[in-house]
């Protein structure tokens, strides 16, 4: 009897470990790429720089979006956010010798990105953070690491084909976003919501005529409802996503720029794109040229 029980226990352990292994394998797909974590990274940076401090500390706080599929998204049951922005974060952290699991992910929403950088709540913001002159007054922005443009997501049977057609229609996006301001300037009635998923819902149930934001995000939603939704019009704005850092540490700009340029050259950038935004079917674009640091 005793032996049987032992056998059962052994079998159970075996099954459990097999299942766990399967689970791990499944997770690896979602977790994106493996990055090469630098050894002894701290020695690469001069003493007194912020990079040296972070490398010595062995951890970094990165602010990303949690509600933009493809860009930065964290589901209710996920441990870490996934998307192109977190991938860029992992590449930067790896250069400091910080492994992906040592990154402290923090959710930043559009309205608190500057405040979080100023108060040191996060070390970097990689959160579909368009580079603008106003923002560069209060925070540092290195980049662009990705350039996208604003488009429209409509129902498959919609009459909206060009940007002129939005005059007099109701178009939703996130309250206070640049996209909403742009579409208002095109003559549409702006309808602001808290999240993109709420906005998609309004398009699906017919309350509003279209949703607008960066094309990359729209493609992600169109892929979720291929029969009901489509992405239309040529991109009518240019959003240059940058990496935000505190203006108190200007030395970070050169480091961010060089690290991303290296990733663009050795293919890490393209690989990061393919496992995130590329999943919606768009071709991997040419990486954009980074702005020189001041």
């Amino acid at each position, binding site marked *: 009897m005793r032996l049987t029980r032992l056998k059962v226990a052994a079998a159970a352990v075996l099954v459990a470990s097999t299942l766990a292994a399967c689970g791990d394998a499944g997770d690896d797909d979602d977790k994106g790429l493996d990055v090469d974590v630098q050894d002894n990274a701290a020695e690469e940076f001069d003493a007194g720089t912020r990079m040296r401090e972070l490398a010595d500390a062995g951890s970094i706080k990165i602010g990303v979006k949690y509600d933009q599929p493809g860009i930065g998204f964290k589901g209710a049951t996920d441990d870490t956010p996934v998307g192109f922005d977190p991938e860029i974060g992992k590449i930067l952290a790896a250069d400091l010798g910080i492994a992906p699991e040592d990154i402290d992910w923090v959710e930043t929403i559009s309205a608190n990105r500057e405040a979080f950088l100023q108060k040191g709540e996060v070390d970097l913001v990689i959160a579909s953070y368009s580079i603008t002159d*106003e923002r560069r007054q209060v925070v540092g922005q290195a980049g662009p690491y990705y350039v996208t443009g604003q488009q429209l997501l409509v129902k498959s049977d919609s009459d909206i084909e060009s940007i002129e057609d939005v005059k007099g229609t109701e178009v*939703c996006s996130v309250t206070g*976003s640049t996209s909403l301001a742009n579409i208002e300037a095109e003559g549409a009635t*702006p309808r602001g919501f808290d999240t993109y998923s709420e906005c998609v819902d309004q398009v699906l149930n017919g309350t509003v005529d279209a949703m607008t934001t960066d094309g990359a995000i729209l493609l992600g939603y169109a892929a979720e409802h291929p029969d009901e939704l489509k992405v239309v019009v040529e991109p009518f704005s240019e959003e240059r996503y940058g990496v935000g850092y505190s203006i108190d540490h200007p030395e970070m700009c050169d480091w961010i720029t060089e690290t991303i340029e290296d990733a663009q050259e050795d293919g890490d950038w393209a690989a990061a794109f393919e496992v995130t935004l590329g999943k919606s079917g768009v071709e991997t674009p040419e990486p954009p040229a980074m702005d020189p640091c001041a």
Partner: protein
Amino acid sequence: MDDVFSNFDLVLKAFWMTVQLAVLSGVAAMVLGTLLAAMRVGPVAVLRTVASTYVTVVRNTPLLVMCVFVFFAAPNLGLLVGTPFLVKGTIAVGLYTAPFVAEAIRSGVNAVPLGQAEAARAIGMTFAQNMRHVVLPQAFRASVPPLASTLIAMTKNTSVVAVFGIMEATARMRYFVNRNADDTILIFVVFAIGYILLVELISLGAVGLERRWKAAR
């Protein structure tokens, strides 16, 4: 900051939307709230139960949840799809505020000495006449301070619909904050002053009413 002042028409339009929302919701809440209060103090047991159930359920529901029902759940069920957003906002805020109005008025009704209602009944008034000519006029007078508080809270509560598709003051504030990352504090101050002015109007109105109805005593 220049951006805000050179586009001040956008600020005014946004506050006009807040005012419209507040006035429409206020009227809806006052009418429904008075009705609920009358039902709760009335002689019909069924109506009393209905009114107190409504007060219990709605007063214990956060406004955000109310908005989720009106703006998300209803359209998904095919209701209110073509309804203008302003009307949906009025429904959400009005329905939410009504029980608070009802309780403010009920406290006023309870403040009217019992002898008043008894005297009215003694001279043969019906319940409706009694309420209309004797109890409610005195009850409203006693209800002015709590009603003013309720309406002030409601005016500020309209800001919740900023994330439900309505371009009112708070939504417009977020628009400016997003465009002027270097000036956020001043923008907050400008919009806070706007809200203070609106709320002061209600306070002054309440003070005026109190003074006027005091003289009538």
